[in-house]
């Protein structure tokens, strides 16, 4: 069990800067992020893109901003749980929060700050009848352990890089691999595309182009999948697994079940201090909403500063907060 003052969900720029604002007020932070590295969208989606609206930086690359933030918060010794998704939030008898992650890590804190940006990137699911019924019974969205597919029959659906890469990799392991793609060509890396066509020619990969998943069949476990082509011809394929790889889509995820007021996938907050309707839980950055909300990093930084001032009362209920400038007081490392 990790014990901290503030548990920050999301290690993007706004989550990172919260560590600084909290640190000035002598509050310790632990950050949790589903991605394996810090920086959120900036690291994952556009690390090399320049950003032009960070005050004091006429131009800064996204990855440089993340690195600068990392250095800025070092004095306050933040701790991290990366690559794990926040699943559950419970309240202890003493009034603290316990956050539990997908991997079973537990973080106990007095305050929760949700700085989750667009949310968790979750697999995009095809529209198929009984899809949810077969999840865990043959339908899997991520290849975590390729060995589970050894000597099995699988159908991979999708045309992106991950569909191509896994199709190539799994032909070595599985008994039979079928790759289903809606179009007749792939937009993935030319090298991978070439390999896929080569494997298909050699009879090691069953390649179905201009085709879509149509329906799933099985009783208890997945037995077969019907594939429909552009002419409407249905082809039944016996299979043990189907792996739909249609990319990731941002979702609020389990946070949506925490009793917070939600409006259109965003968390409603009070602009006084960016608190949610649950005392002790704040939401800052792109994940919150309020009248006049602008999804800008610089707005998230402002929200982090006000949040920290307000969170102080939960961490130090018996102390009076006195505001001090860093120019006067400096940065006092932990």
């Amino acid at each position, binding site marked *: 069990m990790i014990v901290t003052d503030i548990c920050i969900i999301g290690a993007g720029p706004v989550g990172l800067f919260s560590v600084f604002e909290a640190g000035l007020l002598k509050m310790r932070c632990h950050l949790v992020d589903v991605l394996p590295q810090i920086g959120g969208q900036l690291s994952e*989606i556009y690390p090399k893109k320049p950003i032009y609206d960070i005050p004091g930086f006429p131009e800064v690359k996204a990855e440089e901003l993340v690195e600068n933030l990392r250095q800025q918060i070092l004095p306050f010794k933040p701790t991290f749980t990366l690559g794990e998704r926040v699943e559950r939030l419970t309240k202890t008898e003493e009034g603290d929060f316990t956050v539990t992650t997908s991997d079973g890590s537990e973080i106990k804190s007095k305050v929760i700050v949700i700085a989750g940006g*667009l949310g968790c990137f979750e697999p995009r699911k095809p529209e198929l009848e009984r899809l949810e019924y077969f999840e865990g019974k043959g339908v899997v969205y991520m290849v975590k352990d390729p060995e589970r597919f050894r000597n099995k029959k699988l159908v991979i659906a999708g*045309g992106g890089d991950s569909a191509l890469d896994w199709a190539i990799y799994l032909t070595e392991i599985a008994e039979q691999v079928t790759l289903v793609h809606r*179009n007749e060509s792939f*937009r993935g890396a030319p090298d991978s595309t070439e390999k896929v066509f080569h494997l298909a020619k050699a009879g090691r990969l069953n390649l179905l182009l201009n085709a879509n998943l149509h329906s799933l069949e099985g009783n208890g476990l997945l037995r077969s999948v019907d594939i429909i082509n552009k002419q409407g011809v249905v082809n039944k394929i016996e299979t043990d697994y189907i792996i*739909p790889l249609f*990319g990731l889509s*941002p979702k609020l995820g389990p946070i949506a079940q925490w009793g917070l007021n939600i409006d*259109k996938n965003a968390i409603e907050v009070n602009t006084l201090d960016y608190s949610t309707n649950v005392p002790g839980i704040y939401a800052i950055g792109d994940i919150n909403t309020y009248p006049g909300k602008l999804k800008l990093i610089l707005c998230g930084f402002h929200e982090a500063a006000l949040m920290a001032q307000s969170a102080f009362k939960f961490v130090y209920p018996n102390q009076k907060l006195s505001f001090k400038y860093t120019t006067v007081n400096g940065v006092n490392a932990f």
Partner: protein
Amino acid sequence: MIIFDVVDRSGSVRTVEVPEEINLNLMEVLKASEYPILATCGGMALCATCQVEVSQGIEKLPSPTDVELDMLDQLPKATSQSRLACQIKINENLNGAIFTIASE
């Protein structure tokens, strides 16, 4: 004025009129017209929550960029008529077009 039709998820059709030189994209106009699209990513062609089917006038639209094509290619329900509204600039090319908002 630029005039086009929008079919919402329940199938009802509404004509939308937008002033020329508005300098917005279709996603922004749909949101401003109170259609319930999430547009979670804010227009970066990342979330595909603004997917539309162009049932009329697709040939007049500029071709999708690589970023948009990469996203469309991943979507399980996309067709050759699919576009991301956030990548369609509002201009006279949209006159007479029909956009159907894709299911969530």
